[in-house]
């Protein structure tokens, strides 16, 4: 390909470490992350629900000696200022100027996707269209004339099935080819009324340079885009006044806000293009239609939600307990029987580390694996959005809407990604409310504590009761928080993706990515934490910490004195409470050291008392320290209050 070194130097990239920078842009849930994974080999989490990629992911592709940096942008439908993602993406594409923008398009919904393609063309980005999911398109009885589409758009069009890796090498070739020889992007002409006004007005902008193409700025001013209006207004007030007059004329003619007029025009163009390149045959009843007849059925639908969410937890309980027993039996013979509290420091440290390792293997891994596999399968199937739809009405009571169900369900896995996914909510109020409720969802770490303490030594029914109690709490607290937190709430507007049969290999990869981070980052924490704890123990420092906290732990909660240190460690990772308990008493038979009431109270407090360190940091990053500390302080106070109440109530009859 690069056989002519004298022709053209590779395009200049803003990144020092890469020869080329390629950004992936497109609507939500069209397979950008799948394309990204195919290009880079990086395991970016993929799932079949819109809004999954919130942070832009970066990866490197090495191709014929070139280092190509690939950036996966969050999925958006438009370049308005509806959400942060839209704003950030357009600034990135226009101002940081990636060498190539690959517009990933869902071939089975061409019109809607072209609406965004048109806007990318307006941003004057050098681009390639990756026409993805052509298998699904064919399934829907649609065929597209790729050459014709390429001709109309004036950019290369590559058909792909990213999930299966089809068309990816052609895409890479096109990327290289385009950097060597850029094509001029055609100007998309609007209807007469809009076009006249753009033309009338664009020359005025000649001297204004805010980094965006002139024509694009003119269109945005007509749309009354508040960010661009402010920017241009800061330079020349008269231009903004002129654009407002023109926008008013448009609104007078059409009777709609000028932004809607422009959107309607864009859709008109998209429909026109689709009409020319697309042939639509007869569509038979698809899998999605058939499944939705059950999944969205007024009675069966709710049953299915219950079965899937309940099934996810029960499956984790059963399979987790089986693996856990198996591993305990395997590791039993080599496990130390007595904690080493005297002797050389090296022995103490080694012993602590080893116990931490064993406890991690037997208590954490068995539950994490089955949960994540099942969650990945559910995510991949597209069913999460159906749960959102079915439960929308209920979440209104919490000032949220159905989409909030997605972070809440992800929260059962880990609160950190769940808090990030709160970005799919529209307003700051809804994001904060959803994140607050997510911190109350027992993540897999807390599930381990509940299972290890309550299900194993009291009864599975008490463990389930804790879950049900937790859901009631979420509803009640959500309702109160909705009244207290200021701000607006918007209703549900969500795209419903097609179902597809979840792929085992995708689910396995997903599970591996999630478990891997646990093994590499968290496992060492167990080992180091255990070693440190045992050193503290040997040195006799534990007592002072425990005594300081005993007023709460013993006096109010009725727990053994040692729980003070457990709850401190638990701030770092929730499952550390149970691991440390195992280390201190050197047994995983917690039934022998605490009464059933104590076990339930400890599990209840651990479930609620504070978001773990990583979650607090995520909250601070997303909402600021004030909100993060408010949520944490509330959780601590509330959990201690509830724990004490539970201790007194349960002691009456247990």
């Amino acid at each position, binding site marked *: 390909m690069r056989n002519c070194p004298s022709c053209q130097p590779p395009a200049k990239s803003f990144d020092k470490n890469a020869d080329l920078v390629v950004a992936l842009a497109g609507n939500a849930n069209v397979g950008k992350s799948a394309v990204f994974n195919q290009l880079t080999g990086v395991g970016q989490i993929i799932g079949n629900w819109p809004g999954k990629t919130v942070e832009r992911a970066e990866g490197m592709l090495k191709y014929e000696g070139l280092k190509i940096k690939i950036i996966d942008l969050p999925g958006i439908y*438009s370049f308005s200022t509806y959400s942060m993602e839209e704003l950030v993406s357009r600034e990135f594409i226009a101002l940081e100027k990636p060498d190539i923008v690959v517009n990933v398009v869902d071939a089975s919904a061409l019109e*809607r996707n072209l609406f965004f393609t048109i806007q990318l063309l307006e941003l004057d980005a050098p681009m390639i269209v990756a026409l993805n999911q052509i298998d699904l398109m064919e399934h829907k009885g649609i065929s597209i004339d790729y050459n014709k589409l390429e001709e109309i758009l004036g950019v290369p069009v590559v058909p792909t099935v990213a999930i299966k890796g089809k068309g990816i090498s052609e895409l890479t070739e096109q990327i290289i080819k385009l950097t060597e020889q850029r094509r001029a992007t055609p100007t998309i002409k609007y209807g007469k009324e809009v076009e006249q006004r753009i033309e009338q007005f664009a020359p005025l902008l000649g001297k204004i340079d805010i980094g965006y193409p002139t024509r694009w700025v003119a269109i945005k001013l007509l749309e009354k885009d508040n960010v661009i209006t402010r920017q241009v207004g800061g330079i020349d007030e008269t231009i903004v006044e002129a654009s407002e007059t023109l926008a008013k004329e448009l609104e007078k003619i059409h009777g709609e806000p000028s932004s809607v007029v422009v959107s*309607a025009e864009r859709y008109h163009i998209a429909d026109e293009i689709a009409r020319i390149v697309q042939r639509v045959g007869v569509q038979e009843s698809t899998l999605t239609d058939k499944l939705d007849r059950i999944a*969205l059925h007024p009675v069966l639908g709710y049953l299915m939600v219950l079965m899937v969410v309940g099934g996810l937890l029960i499956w984790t309980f059963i399979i987790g307990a089986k693996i856990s027993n198996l591993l305990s039996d395997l590791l039993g013979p080599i496990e130390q029987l007595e904690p080493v509290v005297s002797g050389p420091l090296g022995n103490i440290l080694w012993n602590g580390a080893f116990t931490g390792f064993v406890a991690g293997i037997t208590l954490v891994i068995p539950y994490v694996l089955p949960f994540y596999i099942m969650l990945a399968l559910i995510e991949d199937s597209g069913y999460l959005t159906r749960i959102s739809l079915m439960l929308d009405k209920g979440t209104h009571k919490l000032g949220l809407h159905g989409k909030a169900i997605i972070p809440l369900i992800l929260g059962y896995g880990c609160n950190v990604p769940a808090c990030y996914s709160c970005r799919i909510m529209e307003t700051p109020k809804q994001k904060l409310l959803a994140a607050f409720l997510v911190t109350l969802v027992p993540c897999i770490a807390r599930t381990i504590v509940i299972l290890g303490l309550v299900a194993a030594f009291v009864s599975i029914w008490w463990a389930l009761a804790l879950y049900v109690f937790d859901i009631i709490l979420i509803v009640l607290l959500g309702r109160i928080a909705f009244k207290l937190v200021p701000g607006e709430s*918007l209703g549900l507007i969500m795209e419903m993706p097609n179902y597809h049969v979840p792929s085992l290999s995708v689910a396995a990869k997903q599970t591996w990515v999630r478990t891997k981070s646990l093994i590499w980052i968290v496992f060492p924490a167990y080992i180091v934490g255990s070693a440190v704890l045992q050193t503290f123990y040997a040195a006799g420092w534990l007592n002072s910490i425990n005594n300081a906290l005993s007023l709460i732990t013993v006096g109010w909660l009725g727990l053994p004195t040692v729980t003070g240190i457990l709850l401190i460690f638990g701030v770092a990772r929730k499952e550390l409470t149970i691991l440390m308990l195992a280390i201190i008493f050197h047994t995983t038979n917690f039934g022998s050291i605490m009464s059933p009431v104590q076990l339930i109270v400890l599990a209840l407090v651990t479930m609620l008392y504070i978001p773990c360190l990583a979650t607090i940091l995520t909250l601070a990053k997303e909402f600021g320290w004030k909100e993060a500390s408010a949520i944490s302080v509330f959780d601590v106070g509330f959990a201690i209050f509830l724990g004490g109440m539970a201790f007194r109530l349960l002691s009456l009859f247990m």
Partner: protein
Amino acid sequence: MDIAGEKGTAKTSEVANCLDNAPASVTEVFQNMAQKGLVEYEPYKGVSLTDKGLEIAKNIKRKHRILEVFLTKTLHISCKKVHDEACRMEHSISDEVGDAICRQLDAPARCPGGKLIYPCDKRIKTCNECKGTSEEEVSAGQRKIVPITDLKPSQTGIIAFLRGGQKVIQRLSDLGLTPGTEVILMRKTPMDGPIEVSVRRTSLAVGHDIADNIFVEAAGAS
């Protein structure tokens, strides 16, 4: 209209009960109305509104709800009284006054009780357009415009206009619900849950409150 509900007919006794009147006098009123072509009345069976009657009833209902908003929001009359007050006023104000109040209140979408206020039948495209105009410019039109939530499952409609906050309108049009677009109502969910709309080969779930403000010209079931 409310009593008849889905069936379309109301029994004389039901109406009498509701109005606290003797059945005999209700029957008399019905016969009177039937002569004017507002209702179809069959002795012993009951009464149903004709198309003409339905139009008038809808118009009065619209005025009633707008008046409720006006009484609560502008005049700060207590919630308990607004219904009765509005009941008395709805018959005496003209269409012109009703529409003027509507404009003054920025075309409210719902009455204080949360019920939907239907758009008027003016020959204008959107409420937005109405705001800047005077009465002479907007005369009565014939378009049959209903909220998308009034469509039946798998019925087609053409988007007439959207009502609501700027952000919501922007989002809906970005997702393809632009005026003039053909949409199909795929399904409704019970208890006023979200609806599913098919537009440009994609499927959208829209909350009921938002969907009530998407107005369409209804077409036949496909």
